């Protein structure tokens, strides 16, 4: 018998708070999606959009532009968010996001090279950039393993690798940009322009599969949050779970990148924002996925409709990420550990 129920009131209260927060985020995302499909150069009412979609009408703006764009935004947002959150959780540091430590830009390098110079189709590009992302992750890990692995060395090595990859990307984009500025912009900051419907099914499948695997490992991740030692003691197969989750994250990042380009800051911001909202007592896969989707869709809406000129989504989200990065560096620096 439980004698002292009062000690569990907090757990129940926070559980309820969590579900309410998830519900509200879901509503916000739904509203943003509606805004995104209805508003633009030509405005539609929601009823019109719904009837166009349900009847499968051949409306170019909705069916070929806004809908694919919104779906890509949602799923790329989810992919970046849960991959970033996984990295941050497994490495125990909010700075250890794949877009800070070079993993994202590793797969971007491959994607840019294949698309701009080899003219390969998107499916092959996705596969190559997954491989490149894994290779980048592995190389960064190996480089930071000298004299034993340390998280801070991984982050520093990663930031170095990031700078190197970004330079490579910029160089390739500069060479190609004479002909194609929008494509170039995609690879600099992430952009949802020119998404074609044929790339979407694979993205959706990959995101759903990876999400399912991560939810399946949910309990193990909670134990891993206490550190590798505790996870081992609690009976988690640490190396198996960690390898699997890292692999899923890199695949997510690479797929999403090959479609939308590296949308700035989503991987880096979503997890911490979700944690702030839902407290750290829950594993925040669902919440950070929702935050990721909200950030991308909101960023895209702002970039398309609310600013004097049209900006790609990555520029808008990048503006959000920079101050947070500075804040984090200052705070962690005060604590004396990176």
């Amino acid at each position, binding site marked *: 018998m439980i004698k002292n129920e009062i000690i569990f009131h907090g757990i129940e209260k*926070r559980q309820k708070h969590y579900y309410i927060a998830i519900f509200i985020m879901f509503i916000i995302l739904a509203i943003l999606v509606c805004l995104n499909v209805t508003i633009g150069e030509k405005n539609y009412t929601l009823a019109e959009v719904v009837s166009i979609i349900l009847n499968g009408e051949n409306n170019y703006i909705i069916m070929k532009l806004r809908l694919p764009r919104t779906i890509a935004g949602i799923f790329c947002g989810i992919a970046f968010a849960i991959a970033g959150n996984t990295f941050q959780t497994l490495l125990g540091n909010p700075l250890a996001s794949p877009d800070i430590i070079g993993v994202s830009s590793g797969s971007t390098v491959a994607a840019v090279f294949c698309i701009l110079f080899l003219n390969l189709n998107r499916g092959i590009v996705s596969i190559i950039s997954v491989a490149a992302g894994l290779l980048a992750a592995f190389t960064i890990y190996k480089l930071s393993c000298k004299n034993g692995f340390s998280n801070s060395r991984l982050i520093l090595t990663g930031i170095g690798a990031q700078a190197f990859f970004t330079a490579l990307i910029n160089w390739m984009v500069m060479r190609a940009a004479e002909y194609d500025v929008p494509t170039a912009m995609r690879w600099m900051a992430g952009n949802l322009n020119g998404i074609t419907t044929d790339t979407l099914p694979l993205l959706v499948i990959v995101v759903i599969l990876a999400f399912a695997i991560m939810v399946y490992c949910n309990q193990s991740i909670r134990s891993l949050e206490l550190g590798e030692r505790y996870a081992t*003691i609690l009976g988690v197969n640490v190396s198996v779970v960690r390898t699997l989750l890292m692999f899923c994250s890199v695949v997510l990042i690479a797929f999403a990148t090959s479609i939308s380009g590296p949308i700035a800051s989503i991987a880096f911001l979503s997890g911490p924002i979700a944690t702030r909202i839902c407290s750290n007592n829950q594993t925040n896969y669902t919440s950070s996925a929702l935050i990721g989707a909200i950030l991308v869709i909101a960023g895209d809406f702002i970039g398309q409709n609310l600013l004097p000129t049209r900006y790609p989504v990555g520029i808008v989200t990048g503006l959000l990420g920079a101050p947070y990065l500075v804040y984090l560096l200052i705070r962690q620096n005060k604590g004396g550990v990176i």
Partner: protein
Amino acid sequence: MKAHSLKAENLVAGYGDDIILNSVNMKIPENKISVILGSNGSGKSTMLKTFCRLLAPKSGSILLDDKSINCIRSKDIAKSIGLLPQDSIAPAGISVAELVARGRFPYRKFMAPLTKEDYIAIEEAMEAMNICMLADKSVDELSGGQRQRVFIALALAQQTDILFLDEPTTYLDIAYQIEILDLLKDLNKKKKTTIVMVLHDINLSSKYADYIFAMKNGHLIKEGEPADIITPETIREIYGLESVVVTDPVSNSPMIIPISSHDEISGVS
């Protein structure tokens, strides 16, 4: 419930090419409190890590109920062997009750919420460590002594009948040290939990331990009850330290008084 037996056979372990433990045989006495003593670098922490699967042995084996732990599912081992590591980190902002609840990992089913058994185990663990009133506090806000009790409760929620603790009293002042060790002694008496600790303080070891293992340079050099181990000869052998052993007037356990090079002037020897 029959206690699980745990022993190490011809254990060789170390880091990289360094061999720290050199063919150690150690059988943990069931339902007792044991302490592993030894100077810095003697291999006592390594011993603990190897018992808890944090370090894979280079050769030899750890046997749980006479079965090598390599052949047992990790979750099943986690139901028998718990550990309080030397330093523990908590996710920022987590509450005490939720942290303790994570000790239930080996019992939880996929996607299922906490069961009634989970709740009972969590409550018992928190009661045993006297932290029920801290349930909703954030772990970041706690004092060192409270924190240590929370992490012990996490290990207790795991409901193992063997519990290892790596220097549970380090960084705590003397009152907290006694408080923690008293709680562990209660636990051993009430639930018959087998407790194995690494402690630095010889006098506290002899006060609380039923059995002491003395290690030096990766070898187990002596084992037995405190009265047999805490002698000037053994202390000299382990630490290279001269000492006088007297009887603690309160608990009647042996107590050492170290001799410093300045003491000889006053004629004690």
